[in-house]
């Protein structure tokens, strides 16, 4: 990386474009201890076997991860798949982020590079098996040539290439350079899964050590000589724009360098983060609310509920639902459920670092969930050829969907902040927690109207569900992400109708860990539980009777019931609740044990979890994702809402009023993985959906009162 300081020629050149900002302090010397960003693609001294595998002279194997590592474990999972087919030893494996490239590194399920929908392992499995097997074949060919023996007599095991007859043996490194020159085989032979030695093992994660000693480099840690720090003042209403601003006080703050209006707000540039924050706080901004959302959450809910009376978009219509509700002896149940906006609140708020190289090309360091889109967006905003922009995806402090944005609106802001400078100084742009909580791109608000019909024999014969909320995909017609999990209800109910209404708000929506299942999973699993209770059926047995055509649902449900000793009495003061949800191809069933806490809110003691995600690449990572998904989902269902007050101002601002689950609220989690030979599916999201409804079901038994509105605990009045 080239780090350069301001030169007067460059500065005056760019100043002529009207994009200069002043410099008031002398550049500080670059400290030797500063974190430099990690370049995408790995060390150039490594020998590339293909787009995904590089081998070093020191025998290390570096896997280029096309997927971002923000906690869900793709570095480890993808490296495991490569190592398996390469017959490498786990100790020699490394992982780095690949460069941004929508073709070479496309998510095969998306058609462009991107991480999401719990697809990292699922879409890469065959691709990386081939990448590993290809590299192995090239190493073997190089060894055969050097040793002058037939390739067919060479074996590879735990990172050692061997020829038994001649007692020759070598590591990978000695042949890496030569192997790279060999033509890769078109169709390398893949292992029979029964011969897997690494897949299915609880291998230690590759990124753990650097995450326990402070050395892992996140975007916020990337520094450079003479770097500028920037923050942006954003409006408190969605859709508001800057009418006017007074920066006189802000400019007096020690370390503030300049202040610029950009399309997203007012940017403050400073010599350090604190000065940027202090300067921002000293701004006086008048906002234009002409196009802003000024309705409250309460008003929005009322407006949404009015849509129940109108004809919506049909998602599913099986049998004759209207008739099912009017049959002889049929009893029915109706419920309206309300779901709030949810912020993702990853630990690392959005951030990006821009460093221009001497040749005019640009390095961007960021938590890129759609790297190709971030690259083209930044290039467009900055007026650069995309070929001159390198997006270096960094290890990232969580996302949960927040960093996967079509059109890269965050990058539009960050690039606009950089574009408003002369570009000569490296720049770090960061959001604060307040920017994050109030920044939109929420899990949308939804309301559901549920109707269920039960015949005289206690059979559920009709299910009628209407879902109202924003289309995350911004569609005018049916958005599958609004109805997934409901439109394909797993329960065998002969008359099923699911309708949807898309609403339009200026509050930007986004996918939030498990997307539609965040609300459909809750609605379906609490409502079926109530219907079963009404007809006197056991929650587990009743579900199983409706799932006879869904063997994988049945197996996970049976497994979790066995783990929890379902049917045995719950501990004194506790009730159990169950839920099973298939999402992103994986099946997860959970049983929770809940009591009423001292403050009157739910206390979740224990969660049993069974998961079927096909072939288990790394059971350790799968268990971690179930544990984490449970904690993430539980925190939201208990505590979280983003609320618009009267007039449309966002009420919440930080972790004091947008609560996160804390360690004293984390239940004991016991996870079992169902053995499977099916292709692997995802685990990043599927752990989330069942916990909410399972807790609500237990809560209903404890309190005789169903949960109709989330969150369960009203944090603002607590």
């Amino acid at each position: 990386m080239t780090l350069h300081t301001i030169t007067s020629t460059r500065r005056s050149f760019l100043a002529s474009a009207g994009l200069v900002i002043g410099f008031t302090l002398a550049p500080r010397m670059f400290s030797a201890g500063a974190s430099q960003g990690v370049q995408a693609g790995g060390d150039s001294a490594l020998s590339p076997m293909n787009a995904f595998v590089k081998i070093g002279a020191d025998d290390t194997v570096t896997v280029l991860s096309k997927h971002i590592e923000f906690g869900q474990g793709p570095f480890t999972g993808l490296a495991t798949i490569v190592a398996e087919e390469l017959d490498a030893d786990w100790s020699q494996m490394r992982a780095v982020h690949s460069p941004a490239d929508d073709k070479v590194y496309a998510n095969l399920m998306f058609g462009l590079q991107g991480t999401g929908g719990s697809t990292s392992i699922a879409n890469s499995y065959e691709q990386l098996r081939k990448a590993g097997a290809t590299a192995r074949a090239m190493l073997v060919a190089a060894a055969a040539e050097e040793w002058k023996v037939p390739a067919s007599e060479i074996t590879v095991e735990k990172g050692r290439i061997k020829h038994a007859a001649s007692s020759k043996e070598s590591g990978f490194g000695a042949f890496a350079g030569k192997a790279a020159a060999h033509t890769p085989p078109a169709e390398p032979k893949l292992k029979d899964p029964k011969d897997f030695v690494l897949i299915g093992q609880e291998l230690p994660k590759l990124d753990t050590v650097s995450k326990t000693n402070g050395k892992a480099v996140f975007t916020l840690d990337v520094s450079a000589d003479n770097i500028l720090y920037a923050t942006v003042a954003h409006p408190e209403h969605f859709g508001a724009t800057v009418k006017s601003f007074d920066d006189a006080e802000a400019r007096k703050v020690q370390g503030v360098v300049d202040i610029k209006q950009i399309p997203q707000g007012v940017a403050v540039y400073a010599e350090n983060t604190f000065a940027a924050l202090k300067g921002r706080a000293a701004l006086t901004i008048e906002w234009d609310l002409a196009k802003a959302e000024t309705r409250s959450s309460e008003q929005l809910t009322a407006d949404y509920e009015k849509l129940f009376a109108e004809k919506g978009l049909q998602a599913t219509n099986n049998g004759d639902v209207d008739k099912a509700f009017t049959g002889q002896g049929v009893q029915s149940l109706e419920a309206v459920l309300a779901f709030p906006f949810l912020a993702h609140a990853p630990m690392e708020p959005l951030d990006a670092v821009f460093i221009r190289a001497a040749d005019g090309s640009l390095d961007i360091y960021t938590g890129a969930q759609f790297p190709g889109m971030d690259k083209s967006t930044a290039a467009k905003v900055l007026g650069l050829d995309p070929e001159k922009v390198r997006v270096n995806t960094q290890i990232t402090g969580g996302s949960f969907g927040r960093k996967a944005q079509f059109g890269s609106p965050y990058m539009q802001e960050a690039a606009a902040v950089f574009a408003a400078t002369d570009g000569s100084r490296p720049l770090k742009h960061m959001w604060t927690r307040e920017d994050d909580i109030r920044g939109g791109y929420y899990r949308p608000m939804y309301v559901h109207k549920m109707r269920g019909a039960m015949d005289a024999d206690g059979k559920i014969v009709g299910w009628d569900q209407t879902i109202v909320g924003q289309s995350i995909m911004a569609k005018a017609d049916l958005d599958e992400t609004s109805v997934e999990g409901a439109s394909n209800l797993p329960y065998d109910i002969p008359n099923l109708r699911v309708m949807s209404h898309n609403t339009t708000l200026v509050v930007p929506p986004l996918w939030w860990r498990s997307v539609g299942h965040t609300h459909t999973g809750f609605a379906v699993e609490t409502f079926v539980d109530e219907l079963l209770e009404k007809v006197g059926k056991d929650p587990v047995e009743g579900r199983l009777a409706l799932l006879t055509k869904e063997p994988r649902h049945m197996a996970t449900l049976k497994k979790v019931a066995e783990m929890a000793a379902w049917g045995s009495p719950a501990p004194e003061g506790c009730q159990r609740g169950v839920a099973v949800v298939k999402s992103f191809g994986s099946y997860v069933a959970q049983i929770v044990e809940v009591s009423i806490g001292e403050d009157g809110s739910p206390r979740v003691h224990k969660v049993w979890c069974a998961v079927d995600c096909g072939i288990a690449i790394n059971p350790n990572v799968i268990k971690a994702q179930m544990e984490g998904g449970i904690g993430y989902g539980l925190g939201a269902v208990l505590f979280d809402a983003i609320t618009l007050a009267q007039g449309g101002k966002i009420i919440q601002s930080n972790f004091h009023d947008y609560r996160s689950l804390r360690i004293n609220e984390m239940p004991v989690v016991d996870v079992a993985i169902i053995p499977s030979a099916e292709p692997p599916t995802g685990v990043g999201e599927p752990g989330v959906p069942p916990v909410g409804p399972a807790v609500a079901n237990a809560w209903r038994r404890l309190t005789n009162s169903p949960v109709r509105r989330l969150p369960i605990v009203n944090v603002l009045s607590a």
Partner: protein
Amino acid sequence: MITFKLNGQERTFDGDPDTPLLWVLRDFEKLTGTKYGCGIAQCGACTVHLDGTTRRSCITPIATVEGSEVVTIEGIEGKEAEAIQKAWVAIDVPQCGYCQSGQIMSAVSLLQMTPKPTDDDIDGAMVGNICRCATYHRIRQAIHNAADTMEG
């Protein structure tokens, strides 16, 4: 001019005395293991040891650190630190990893004061550290495991 000890070395700071210790560490000392998460002492990602006890560096003005001794994740040492970091690695506690420096600083401090903590002790010491990945289950286990190894 403010003088303090950082990971055993004498340091000075002559900028805005209101600057929180967090930003002095990150922007001026380039010690980036200590993280920003909320800025209002709600999440614990910025936890350091100040004169031997945990402190949220995001709300600690550098002016108040005059003459104090600051230890960050980069400088932590001793048998508790070693036991905690080993225990963290052994069961792969981190997911995204962003909060883990703060978690480890709180956990080390807990073991320094309470070598054999109960679950309630762990709740009390760790409740101020948010992990959005919810690695809490493993954090608890790792603290117990670390305590066991120190005993043995």
